[in-house]
């Protein structure tokens, strides 16, 4: 109890200090310096209508490479931890069998989920959304499949090949920049195209598609690993 009170006080102090700090930077005030530059020049320089995308993939594309690596690391970590894992017979029997509506409904919905996900990452440079969002939507489709058909397994080798290919696409697209006169990693070397069309913004859509595939396969892999925790009978992969 004393502990709770003491730490509540501590946390109150921290919040107070945070509030004091941010009082100097009030909500809604324009604090942009670099951001202004992006807003003013982003369209001309990258050809993407969505400035957030141009920041994520172009100006700060290297962050995104890191982000992709983080996700990859997490997927690999989960795969390591659940390697050779499997549920006991009891646990498997405890799984409630999904009812008819769920099974049929998920079959109908699944293709639409895939379609929607792909739409989101293909249009990442035009509308809100992008590879990550699209990828996770696709992975949620897989999750639905797992829930309605507990015995489902995905082809893990296939997933990791997609994962690797998508990652390599990103890195190789970046590396091409080093062979150009601009000598800069992730240089947007393709023509910018016309604003607000699908084929615009140079390499950005390609990267987002790659990311979409990568994220989808990684999340699907994580879901698969976690499901396997129960449905596999030890020794599965």
């Amino acid at each position: 109890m004393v502990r709770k009170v003491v730490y509540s006080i501590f946390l109150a102090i921290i919040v107070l200090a945070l509030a004091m700090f941010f009082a100097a930077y009030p909500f809604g005030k324009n604090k942009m310096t670099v951001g202004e530059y992006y807003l003013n020049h982003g369209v001309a320089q990258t050809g993407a209508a969505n400035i957030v995308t141009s920041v994520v993939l172009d100006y700060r594309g290297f962050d995104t490479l890191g982000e992709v690596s983080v996700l990859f690391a997490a997927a690999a970590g989960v795969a390591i931890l659940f390697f050779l894992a499997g549920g006991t017979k009891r646990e498997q029997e405890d799984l409630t069998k999904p009812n008819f509506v769920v099974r049929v409904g998920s079959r109908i919905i699944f293709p639409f989920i895939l379609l929607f996900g792909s739409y989101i990452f293909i249009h990442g440079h035009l509308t809100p959304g992008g590879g990550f969002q699209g990828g996770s939507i696709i992975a949620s489709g897989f999750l639905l499949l797992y829930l309605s058909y507990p015995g489902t397994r995905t082809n893990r080798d296939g997933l990791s090949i997609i994962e690797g290919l998508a990652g390599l696409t990103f890195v190789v697209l970046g590396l091409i920049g080093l062979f150009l006169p601009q000598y800069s990693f992730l240089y947007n070397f393709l023509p910018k195209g016309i604003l607000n069309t699908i084929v615009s913004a140079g390499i950005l859509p390609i990267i987002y598609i790659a990311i979409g595939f990568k994220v989808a396969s990684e999340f699907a892999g994580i879901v698969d690993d976690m499901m396997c925790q129960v449905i596999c009978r030890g020794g599965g992969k």
Partner: protein
Amino acid sequence: MNILLEIMLATPFIGGLLAFIGGKVHRWVRYAVAVTFSFLTLIEALVYYNATIKGVVWGSLFGSKLVLQTNPISWLFLFIVTAMSFLIVIFSIGDMEEDKIKLDSYYMQLLFVEGAMVGIVLAGDLITFFMFWEIMSWTSYFLIIYGGKKSVAAGYKYIIMSIIGAYSMFIAIAMLYVKAHSLVYADVAATLAHSSATFVVWTVVLLGIGFFVKAAVMPLHTWLPDAHSEAPSPVSPLLSGVLIKMGAYGLFIVLYGFLSVQLAGNIMPSVFSTPILLYIIQWLAALSIVLATFLAIMQEDAKRLLAYSSISQIGYVVLGIATGTSLGVAGGLFHALNHAIFKGLLFLAVGAVIYRTGTRNLSDLGGLVKKMPYTFTALLLGIIALAGVPPLNGFVSKWMIYEALLQKKEVFLLIMAFIGSTGAFLYVYRLIHSIFLGQLPKKYENVKDVPILMQFPIWVLAVLTIVFGIFPGLAMNVIVKGMKLFGFKPIAYTLFGFPQGTAMGALKVINISAVLVVAFVAAWVLFLILSKSRKVSQYDNYAAGQVVTPELKYNYSFGFYMSFGRVIKSILKLGIERIYNYWVDAAKVFGDYYMRRVYTGNLETYNSYIVIVVTIAAVAILLGGKLW
């Protein structure tokens, strides 16, 4: 010519590596390499007899030059190091047998220790000095723990105390560096000359702690009895004869190379015309002499006895060096040389006995005089020298120290020095009696004298005790010349002693010896004429009215000085070691307690640490950016 200093420094290290590699080929390659290189070092050292070379720069570090130098005083210690190491390498070949202990790196370590000590005496700046000092510590640690299971604990104690001592020096060196940005001896002296008294005292005290640990001056001696007695036989003389002398050398450099008696006298009060710092050192040394002598008397273990004796004898060296007069310092330095010779001799002789009998417990031994006559003779010479009886070498140096104390009218110290000397008679008698006299236990009836390789170093040292005993001028030649460089008044000397009308009374060892021999012969003749002596068999003995048969040998060397022990028991109870152990244990308990309360294994606790750190920062911010 000067490049040879660096070559000389490198020789033992190269030799050590080659011995290690050569040992992979065949053990005789290892022996040959070790002997060759230690001999080479000795030869290179002899080249510098009485030479003075200042400042051979061999590198630089953090803006301070690294310098090698030599002068006659350094040469004296260089001679001790190289000569003893050479003899010990030879002795090791006989003593350390391949099948007893694995010798993979023994000779490497031995030569490394030699190299490190050469580095110490050749160092011309404190970084070089400290570097080789540390190398000496850890290489000699590996030598000590060659002695088997018990020696590991002893070595552990040794290395920990050495590190503590070394770091104490380290602080002083860092203080000096920060002050002058140069650690060359001359610059250090200049720095100290312009520093406040507090600074000087702190520097000397901190450096002194390092030296005193190595020199085993009480109360920092506790590592020595264990380490010396548990180390392998050839290593003990190296430790006792040579390694602890490095402490004395360092003390000399600090007191007279950096400071000087006049300077010390200017900044601190004097007692008996001695600066108070030196006076305290004198008392510590005197305490070492007396207490260690008492402890030596009580020992049952031959090497332990010699180890305590080493503490006592190094006390004379330090006492002499700390007197601050030409005579006393010369006596101290000379005693360092003498002690190296006779203590090396004693340890080697005892090592020879251990080699044949496998024990160093005095009460198990006895009557070996007929079985090992050469060793007996050598040991006899050694103990005579140790007890300070003319014409052997211990006499002259002790005499000089007494004389110096007498001239300064420091009576208490003189009495303590005398007590130490008298006590020495008791324990050396115990040593030779229990090993060689008395009755021969049955199991040792087949004992032979040791092989020639082991006898050679023993005899060389035995001869040296006589040479330096009769011709003290040989050593004084170097010492006086060297002390002139450090600003001491030269003392007159001749080859045979000291002429009349100089700083001390006339002393001619030959004459004194002659008198002594005459007296001895007279006493013996009287003994023969007057007493009713008769010749008896070694086994003709009684105990409780029963004739003791050879099987039931009566061995009365256990509890030899029991009654004396009862008298001094209260002193022995002081138990410095117990105090140290107490503190170490307390620190351990304390550390354990706090460690367990911090790393509890509980994630909540760990997380709350993070929050606490952030809270502290937040409080600081709320208080307006003030942190305290």
